[in-house]
């Protein structure tokens, strides 16, 4: 009994061994992805090595939304000096890179100084199912129920084993089952009565009437759950399909009978359903709820990736999916050291919504000192006459004081220090300052963000330069420093980008000044490195350039580490104070 897994693949052995079905299960996007890959490989076959470049970029463009990560994996397999690689399929290639172990290692290391302490696993869709089955078996070894009931119970407790155990042994079990919408396996008789009366009534006919389609069926064509409500199999199928495909329900589908809240278990669903597409969708919904309910799991947010990360404990740590995407386990954003999830979330929200519009209004307009209507001055002299017909007050745009005392000095306001005028100016000054401050950080953040987006382009142009240099006087291995330089550049940009989100909320103190110095230093070094990579590499002064670039990227790497270490030290020693109200 315990061998009977709750997943379809084991309920339906054919399904398990049918490769098409398995592909389906990965979800449709994946399928597409596979197709693309095949196409590319075919395409690749026609190409000789000089066209290699084009292939890589076309392949990489699929990953547009996360270019920074994916491109390296594709490069990994395609940028090779020998044409012998060009015709091999992508899959074989990734294996064949073992010929150059050092390179492939350094390439996949992108962006991660993963904390050795933080243990996690990347689970493919199949593994997720397997893990879910293991969780169930684990609990079941104690509870000794059927896997299907255990799974429903676990889902009810958001896959918190301890909580389930506690409730199971401490509380009212009947209530527990009722709350989880399961027929208690210990009291099966309460529900069976309905069936028995039904069967005696129609046993004469040896046929049952399905209450949904009103057709007569023999007993083996009828099906139902523990609650005893029976319907014909085609109606069940239709009912489940509607719930799964139209309403996106998985774990929470209840019996088709009116007012019956008993949940349909996965075994029944998989036996009743026939259409593989619906089955796959159902399994997807089940695994999805498993991953999303589980605090120690998170889907990889990269597009087209269907892996999930399983961690030992919950923490804000970088995790790297097998697809190459590196992200924060806690919030799912790109790995954003040094800023913390909480502040990053706030920052992203601030950048996304148009709360800044009101800041702009505050900074660029003034209010009529009498009727408070908002005015934007777009020309003319300082003698303002409010357009509001009910107000018509006259005032000075510069000092916001009444116009009268200004007399004949039409264009100059020398009444700068009048009290109320000063107050109005101060308020103005403050919001203007806030806007300036925000724009300062936002511009720099966006600038790096934009540059990271252009990474693909840079990689392509660098690759060209590498080939060019190889044609002159350098060997393949000698030009690899350029790739490393791009990697460091992107890594630094990503770090810098998030330092601005960090700095925006930071209160000024001695440590924040040190931090800003570190930031400025790294910023300058990164821009220099970027400049080298964009302009100064020619084949003429290759040796000299190489030295310069290598020095610079090593310096960047080092400065980046210094900056991050300082911030981390600050977290440990409470250097940082925040401006909560921004």
């Amino acid at each position, binding site marked *: 009994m315990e061998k009977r897994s709750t997943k379809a693949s084991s309920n339906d052995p054919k399904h398990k061994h049918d490769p098409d079905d398995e592909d389906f299960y990965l979800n449709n996007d994946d399928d597409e992805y596979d197709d693309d890959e095949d196409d590319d490989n075919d395409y690749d076959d026609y190409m000789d090595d000089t066209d290699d470049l084009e292939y890589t970029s076309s392949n990489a463009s699929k990953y547009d939304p996360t270019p920074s990560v994916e491109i390296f994996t594709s490069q990994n397999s395609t940028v090779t000096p020998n044409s012998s690689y060009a015709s091999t399929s992508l899959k074989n290639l990734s294996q064949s890179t073992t010929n150059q172990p050092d390179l492939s290692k350094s390439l996949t290391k992108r962006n991660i100084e993963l904390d050795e302490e933080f243990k996690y696993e990347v689970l493919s869709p199949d593994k997720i199912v397997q893990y879910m089955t293991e969780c169930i078996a684990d609990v079941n070894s104690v509870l000794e129920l059927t896997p299907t009931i255990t799974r429903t119970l676990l889902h009810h407790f958001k896959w918190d084993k301890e909580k389930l155990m506690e409730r199971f042994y401490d509380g009212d079990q009947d209530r527990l089952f009722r709350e989880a919408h399961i027929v208690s396996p210990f009291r099966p008789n309460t529900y069976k009565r309905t069936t028995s009366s039904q069967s005696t009534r129609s046993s004469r006919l040896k046929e049952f009437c399905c209450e949904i389609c009103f*057709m007569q069926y023999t007993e083996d064509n009828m099906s139902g759950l523990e609650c005893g409500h029976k319907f014909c199999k085609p109606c069940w199928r239709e009912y489940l399909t509607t719930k799964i495909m139209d309403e996106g329900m998985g774990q929470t589908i209840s019996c088709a009978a009116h007012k019956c809240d008993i949940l349909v278990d996965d075994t029944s669903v998989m036996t009743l359903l026939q259409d593989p597409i619906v089955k796959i969708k159902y399994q997807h919904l089940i695994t999805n709820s498993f991953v999303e309910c589980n605090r120690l799991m998170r889907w990889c947010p990269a597009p087209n990736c269907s892996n999930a990360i399983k961690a030992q404990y919950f923490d804000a740590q970088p995790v790297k999916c097998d697809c190459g995407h590196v992200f924060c386990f806690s919030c799912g954003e790109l790995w954003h050291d040094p800023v913390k999830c909480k502040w990053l979330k706030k920052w992203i929200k601030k950048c996304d919504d148009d709360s800044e519009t009101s800041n702009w209004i505050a900074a660029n307009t003034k209010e009529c000192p009498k009727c408070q209507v908002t005015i934007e001055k777009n020309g003319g002299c300082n003698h303002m006459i409010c357009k509001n017909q009910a107000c018509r007050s006259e005032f000075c745009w510069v000092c916001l004081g009444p116009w009268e005392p200004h007399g004949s000095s039409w264009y100059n306001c020398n009444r700068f220090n009048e009290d109320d005028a000063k107050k109005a100016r101060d308020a103005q000054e403050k919001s203007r300052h806030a806007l300036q401050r925000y724009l300062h950080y936002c511009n720099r953040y966006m600038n790096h963000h934009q540059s990271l987006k252009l990474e693909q382009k840079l990689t392509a142009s660098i690759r060209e330069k590498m080939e060019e240099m190889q044609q002159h006087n350098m060997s393949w291995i000698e030009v690899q420093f350029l790739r490393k330089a791009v990697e460091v550049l992107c890594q630094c940009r990503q770090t810098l980008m998030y330092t601005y989100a960090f700095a925006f909320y930071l209160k000024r103190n001695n440590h924040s000044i040190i931090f800003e110095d570190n930031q400025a230093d790294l910023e300058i070094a990164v821009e220099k490195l970027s400049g080298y990579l964009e302009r100064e590499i020619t084949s003429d002064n290759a040796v000299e350039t190489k030295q310069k670039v290598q020095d610079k990227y090593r310096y960047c790497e080092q400065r980046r580490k210094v900056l991050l270490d300082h911030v981390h030290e600050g977290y440990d020693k409470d250097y940082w104070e925040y401006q909560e109200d921004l």
Partner: protein
Amino acid sequence: MAQRLQKELANFMRDPIPGMSLDRNLVEGNLNVWVINVDGAPNTLYEGEIFKLQFKFPQRYPFDSPSVMFIGNKIPEHPHIYSNGHICLSILTDEWSPALSVQSVCLSIVSMLSSCKAKSRPPDDERYVQTCRDPSDPKKTRWFFHDDSV
């Protein structure tokens, strides 16, 4: 679906609910729209009144719920029935089950009318009637149920 509706129709004719009868003129030829004449039951607030109840069956009936409303110029005055004929009844949306039928819906509506103690419109009648998404289809509205005493 056609078969189920045929049988429902036959059942409805064979086992009519007291006070309810099918408006024959409207059923001819089109099984997807039924109009049922509802006579206000004796000894209730609606005694002597006659209403018309319309059922529209969607393509996926009974897996999808029918759209049910009162039509015509007489709409029962009831705290759960809006003046445009829409009925606030959970089994018509959230709690719909394919095991329910025209008969079970009719029974619910009859009991809803019979148990009414005082004639009134829902508190938000005016606002709802003006703003509901589609006056001809109550299913376009997202219903929230809060009172099951009537």
